[in-house]
């Protein structure tokens, strides 16, 4: 049995699977459920300064090949999330990633201050939610300058807490955007957020099903997009990457790691494979390493980039 420990910007994970933001993670208890099923780290759902109810239903909709979602950044507000972080840290050993968003660049800093006070292991900065543009305007994550500015604002506040910037696959030249984040002080990159956005229409009522009309696509169908993004980012930065998007099997996770990811985010797979996905991916990774004669994930990380 080959062990799977990884170090993510100085934070030790006993395995590379990370519960992705937006899946469970509403509360310490829901995040702990993923820990109980083997997750190496967990990410909480993104929070902003104030409580938000999000969009009306349907907000989450399975479609062939994946899932459309437009939850609308529902969250109980940073102060309540800070409480959940403390609760989690009192109960679980595995690293917790807190995820933040802001309606303005300054708000990213305000939210980061409240959250960092609760000492998450890592801070993820969600500049790339595709589902609130009617309210927030174009995601900051599509604008390289704005993303770099937000990175700097958050990093100044986070201090020693590593800061990961979560990027959108819709960003132009994601490799160079990741480089801008690194230059602005980011300790890591999470890629990718959901794809599209997409739309599903009910043919009998002849209307879009999601209340937000459109929503980000996740799940198996987006894996190739995510792998390509992680591959390009890895060629442009030296900071670690949490490769997220469509991981359903151990082979999917391997593709991410071969593309250059240090850890792998798992979200929609919690539905398509089940909550056992963390253990199943780890078992498959371990078997692969053993069969191929490798001693750890460090032996294969980014191997597809070396050719």
């Amino acid at each position, binding site marked *: 049995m080959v062990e799977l420990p990884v170090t993510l910007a100085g934070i030790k994970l006993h395995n590379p699977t990370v519960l992705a933001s937006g*899946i*469970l*993670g*509403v*509360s310490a*208890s*829901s*995040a*702990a*459920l993923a820990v*109980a099923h083997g997750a190496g780290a967990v990410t909480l*759902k993104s929070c902003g300064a104030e*409580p*938000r*109810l*999000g969009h*009306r*239903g*349907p*907000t*989450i*909709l*399975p*479609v*062939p090949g994946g*899932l459309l979602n437009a*939850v609308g950044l*529902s*969250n*109980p*507000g940073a102060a*309540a999330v800070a409480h959940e972080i403390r609760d989690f840290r009192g109960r679980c050993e595995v690293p917790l990633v807190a995820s933040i968003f802001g309606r303005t660049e300054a708000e990213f800093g305000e939210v980061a201050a409240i959250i960092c006070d609760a000492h998450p292991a890592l801070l993820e900065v969600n500049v790339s939610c595709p589902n609130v543009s009617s309210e927030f305007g174009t995601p900051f994550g599509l604008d390289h300058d704005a993303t770099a500015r937000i990175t700097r604002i958050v990093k100044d506040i986070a201090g020693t807490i590593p800061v990961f910037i979560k990027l959108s696959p819709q960003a132009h030249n994601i490799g160079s955007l990741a480089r801008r984040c690194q230059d602005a002080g980011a300790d890591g990159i999470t890629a990718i957020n959901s794809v599209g956005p997409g739309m*599903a229409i*009910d043919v*009998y*009522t002849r*209307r879009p*099903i999601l*209340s937000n009309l459109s929503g980000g696509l996740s799940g198996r169908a987006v894996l190739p997009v995510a792998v390509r993004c992680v591959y390009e980012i890895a060629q442009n930065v030296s900071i670690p990457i949490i490769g997220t998007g469509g991981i359903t099997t151990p082979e999917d996770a391997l593709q991410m790691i071969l593309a250059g990811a240090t850890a792998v985010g798992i*979200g*929609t797979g*919690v*539905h398509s494979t089940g*909550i056992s996905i963390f253990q199943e991916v780890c078992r498959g990774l371990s078997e692969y390493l053993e069969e191929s004669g490798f001693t750890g994930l460090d032996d294969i990380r980014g191997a597809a980039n070396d050719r």
Partner: protein
Amino acid sequence: MTVEMSTYVVAEVSQQADLVKTIRLLDVPTAMPGQFFLIWLPGIDEKPISVSNQTSAGTEFTICGVGPWSTAMLQVEAGDRVGLRGPFGNGFALADNTLLVGGGMGVAPLRYLAHRLMEEGRSFDLVVGARDASSLIFREEFGRWGARFATDNGDLGHVGTVTELLSEMLRLRAYDSLYACGPEGMLAAVRVIADEHEMAYQLALERLMKCGIGLCGHCCMEGSGLRLCVEGPVLTREMLDGTAEFGLPHRDGSGRRRT
């Protein structure tokens, strides 16, 4: 289970009380009692509703108008279309020699359970509570099965709570286990009584649900993290033992704990 959304024509609408109606849909996937579907009313919202009966004549959902979605659902007429995803959740395990305890709208899934127990020839008794006689839905059906009723105002049957009636029934004879669905305060009282009698139980709970497929985390119980939409909504003693928020305020749509 159909996780993707499909729309169905409403075959029939019937009314059980002032603000309570039942819609019947055809060709809905087979569900166990206690399982639920997410029902989409286009342009309004999507909410989880348990099956109140399922036969060859169709699948019924009973809805009480309390908020924007359910109030709009009361306007739905035969021929309209609603969307469905499901069935979701674990449902009740069917057992012999049981006592069913229902309160308020919680009687809807127990109605389907009772139908299924009858079909399978499993013996059961039934106690049902409501505010008053006019809000006691499916009274005739329950009456045919020998149900005993409790009303807060004494309109019908026992004057007081359904859990008082439950205690009385347990003094009269022994049952192997309890099923219950209703307001969480009622369920908490049922649990205490079941513990006193060292009886097995299956309690159907309710929480806000956005996805129905175990992803959004809104229906995770404090403590255990159990997802009511996947591991629940029917919880046994073993499942409830690790749960901290039973009978207490829970999360709203933002994820905030109500106090």
